[in-house]
């Protein structure tokens, strides 16, 4: 196991150890997160399913699902990709493999502790920043800062002239995430109260999504797709348009989450306008990736990593069309607080972002273990469970949200909305359970890859070899 390297000398640790540690951790957290999601969804469809037990109450588990997915699955998959992409793009080694292993170890321990406390109801009571402040400090100084140092030092020690767009995203997003964590948790650290606290809660929530989860996922796609297809990125310049417009526009619209709270009106208007401008990076990203596929579209069918990546990029189109416009006052009044938003959040995290990371974890684990994927058939089963489960979830929650929005504006008694939503709650549970099942198949496939996958010869890529099964 990899634990033996925690106390080894840095130069004795084989390259890729941190990648593998992070990779398998992220898959496990994905299973935990989607499993909890499926369990929670069952409770929304059938409220007397496991009832009257404090530890299995919906209110104790909902936040554990959210943070297991964001900080466990997505963020660890990001760290995993950083551990192999950053050195590869700088034509160098990771600055410290040992630091990477310790980051992964502490991340699992810290997140496990924080989520256990959350599950027991020990919370700060602030959405997305629910972790109590001692755990926040562990996350900032024990996890994010060491990860950042590793990535920044690897970029600084690169042996290439330029910095590829993926590394721009990695370096900048870790910096912005650390800042977001420090500022967003300041209400707990300094007991800031009232509207300041409410605003900073959603300032954190917005920036964690906008400056970490979506842009880093996009940065990953900029690496994975040219590697897989052999085509160079269509335009590095359009990539930079994407990068700089994310920094300029996506860091400002936090208050569009609180349009009905008594925040300053100028701030809400400013946020709404800036929020529409996210269409600039969105269009730049989608166009750049799809044009990179020129001449290699057969890989969308033949190669499972490409299939995941392109699906994620295609899901970015409805994601950004919704995201850009649903936060304007003209639309937000109808859908705010409804299942539409839940569907949109899952489109961002489970749809666009997760598909890109799944591809990168498939690709990176094969590269770093030097093993060809155990079974293409199982990977395809994973893909179809994932996409069908996700679409079931997304479509049913969107319909439920529209029903809820209509109920809201036509002053329908709330219980009638609950009754009308019931079939969609069952569909949501079925969809979520399919994603969960697919992920367990994935874990089995990756475990068998580590044990029995065909060895990849030096100088070759795993996807260049033929499948033996």
């Amino acid at each position, binding site marked *: 196991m990899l634990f033996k390297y925690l106390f080894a000398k840095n130069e004795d640790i084989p390259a890729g150890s941190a990648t593998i540690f992070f990779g398998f951790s992220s898959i496990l957290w994905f299973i935990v997160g989607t499993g909890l999601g499926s369990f929670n969804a069952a409770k929304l469809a059938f409220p007397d399913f496991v009832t009257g*037990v404090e530890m299995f109450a919906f209110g104790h588990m909902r936040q554990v699902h959210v943070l297991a997915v964001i900080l466990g699955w997505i963020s660890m998959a990001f760290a995993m990709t950083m551990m192999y992409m950053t050195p590869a793009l700088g034509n160098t080694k990771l600055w410290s493999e040992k630091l990477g292993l310790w980051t992964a170890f502490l991340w699992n321990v810290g997140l496990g502790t924080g989520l256990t406390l959350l599950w027991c109801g*020990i*919370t700060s*009571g602030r959405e997305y920043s629910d972790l109590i402040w001692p755990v926040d400090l562990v996350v900032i100084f024990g996890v994010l800062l060491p990860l950042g140092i590793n990535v920044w030092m690897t970029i600084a020690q690169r042996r290439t002239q330029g910095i590829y767009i993926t590394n721009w995203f990695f370096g900048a997003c870790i910096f912005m995430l650390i800042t977001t964590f420090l*500022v967003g948790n300041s209400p707990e650290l300094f007991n800031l109260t009232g*509207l300041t606290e409410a605003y900073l809660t959603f300032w954190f929530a917005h920036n964690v999504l906008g400056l970490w989860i979506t842009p880093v996922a996009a940065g990953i796609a900029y690496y994975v797709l040219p590697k897989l297809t052999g085509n160079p990125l269509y335009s590095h310049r359009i990539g930079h348009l994407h990068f700089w417009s994310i920094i300029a526009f996506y860091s400002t619209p936090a208050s569009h989450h609180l349009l009905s709270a008594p925040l300053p009106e100028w701030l809400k208007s400013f946020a709404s306008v800036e929020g529409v401008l996210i269409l600039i990076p969105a269009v730049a990203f989608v166009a750049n990736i799809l044009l990179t596929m020129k001449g290699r579209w057969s890989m969308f069918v033949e190669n499972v990593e490409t299939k995941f990546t392109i699906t994620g990029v295609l899901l970015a189109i409805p994601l950004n069309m919704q995201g850009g416009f649903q936060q304007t006052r003209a639309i937000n009044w109808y859908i705010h607080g409804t299942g539409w938003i839940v569907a949109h959040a899952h489109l961002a995290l489970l749809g666009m972002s997760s598909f890109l990371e799944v591809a990168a974890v498939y690709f990176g684990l094969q590269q770093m273990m030097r093993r060809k994927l155990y079974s293409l058939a199982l990977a395809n089963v994973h893909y179809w469970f994932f996409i069908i489960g996700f679409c079931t979830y997304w479509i049913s929650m969107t319909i439920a949200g529209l029903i809820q929005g209509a109920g809201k504006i036509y002053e329908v008694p709330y219980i009638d909305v609950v009754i009308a939503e019931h079939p969609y709650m069952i569909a949501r549970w079925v969809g979520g359970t399919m994603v969960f099942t697919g992920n367990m198949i994935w874990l089995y496939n990756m475990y068998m890859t580590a044990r029995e996958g065909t060895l990849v010869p030096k100088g070759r890529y795993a996807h260049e070899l033929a499948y033996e099964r």
Partner: protein
Amino acid sequence: MAFQNYRWGTAGIGGMFGLSMTITLFFPSFDFRSAESTWVGLDKSMSNGRTIGFSYEDPTVTGQGKPLTVILNKDPKTGATIDPPVRAYVYRPGTPFASPLNHPDNLGPTVKRLSIDKGKIDQAVKAQGAVFTINHADVNGEEWAYAENASVTRGWTVDAALSTAGDANTKYVGRGKSIYIHEGCWWCHTLLPEHTQDWQVFGTPPYLGDFNGEMPTAFGSDRKAPDILHVASRNSSREWMMMHFFNPRLVQPNSIMPRFDYLWGRVDVNGNPIDFSTWRKEYTAYRKGERPYPPEVPEYARNAEIRALIDWVLTSLK
């Protein structure tokens, strides 16, 4: 090899991110600081105590170290009748003060001045405890609510205020809000009616000064259930709340709310153990049509968590 340092690039990231932080954090801070606390804001912050959620005084988020809200219809010192009754916030010795009592800047400039000049809140000492209340003053023809340290201005002591109110008029509001956070009620219920037709069903949206000193505000974002900011104005029945918390399907057959019967604890008001398994068997029989009535909901004990939660709902969510 001397590679490009990308000094302009890194400075550009810092500069652009700094500019957006200036616009979205520094500029609004002036608006937030000038917000004047309303009566609602004073009431919420003083009954919640220093903070809800994880803190030194309450590491398990079960409502330790919180003040008590009492409803007084007699003056605790003189015994004179108070009509209409007033709310007072009793901080027993050692209970940490609410944020605006420690940092009056959080009240907004005018309310801060009134609360110090007339309300003497700066003279309260945590180690001795204090009783606070809300008073009103006229400033340039406008009525302003301000926080008053009744221990100094009216000579109300902690013990006198508690004994005058009695158990029936003592409300565990701060503890109840802690349980609201602890149990995650806010994942489905919001505390923020929207600026749409919402206000006709769920009541008015909150005003600017309604949050001064409150932490966390817990607006909620995902509304799977009705907004409850003004729920006590729609339904003030303690018995209905009891049945609804014990098993929401007793009063609303199509509700998807979880049962919160575990908040009753082990014993009822008479100290007898609550037999949950028998209750559930009888309830199942009722749902199947084998019994004409559901079983009785047990009366909760005086210090049960559910008492605090209902106190908070009925006192704070008007």
